[in-house]
């Protein structure tokens, strides 16, 4: 079946603009995660959705970051007033049992 998909694959924006990143998880996976990966680094946890529970936002680096998950499926990560330090690859994953399945990521470049 289809894996996790993300769009856009690349996004270039100007400092101060807002961006929206989209994640389509694997159908039936109730757990969804957003991670951020800066150049040459490991992944940093951002936010976690589990079913209808309130999301765990403890990894969000600032209040410019927010995310929602509609209907328990598609998720959108929004970054407001982007800064150059927001440049990174943003990865989404959905989980079944112990294994997380990752999407291809969105490479965000803030000029």
């Amino acid at each position, binding site marked *: 079946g289809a894996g996790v998909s993300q769009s856009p694959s690349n996004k270039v924006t100007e400092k101060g603009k807002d961006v929206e990143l989209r994640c389509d998880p694997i159908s039936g996976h109730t*757990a969804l*995660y957003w*991670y951020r*990966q800066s*150049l*040459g*680094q*490991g*992944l*940093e*946890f951002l936010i*976690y959705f*589990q079913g209808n529970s309130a999301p*765990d936002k403890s*990894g969000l680096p600032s209040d410019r970051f927010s995310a929602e998950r509609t209907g328990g499926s598609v998720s959108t990560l929004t970054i407001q007033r982007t800064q150059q330090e927001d440049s990174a*690859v943003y*990865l989404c*994953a959905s*989980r079944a049992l*112990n*294994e*997380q*399945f*990752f*999407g*291809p*990521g969105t*490479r965000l470049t803030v000029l």
Partner: protein
Amino acid sequence: SQQGEEDPQALSIQEGENATMNCSYKTSINNLQWYRQNSGRGLVHLILIRSNEREKHSGRLRVTLDTSKKSSSLLITASRAADTASYFCATDRDTGRRALTFGSGTRLQVQP
């Protein structure tokens, strides 16, 4: 914050040789997983080892786990040029959100 430290940071070997990567972590875990990443994009799950396991094999991969030392190793035998990638260990504490905590990765280059 990242829990794991991996070494080496970079490894270059010839095709056919074995590659060993090590990972250390700080807290108790439920399981430890290894992922491969090509070209800085999506991650591919390679293998999962539970905290009560000491060794696990999958094809050319061999993973060990020493919970007393809070360390794990990934061995790739008979490496191929296609194994060139970054390899990350990730720990799962099996509490709360169960977000994976990733190490900083090892960049493996296999020369043909």
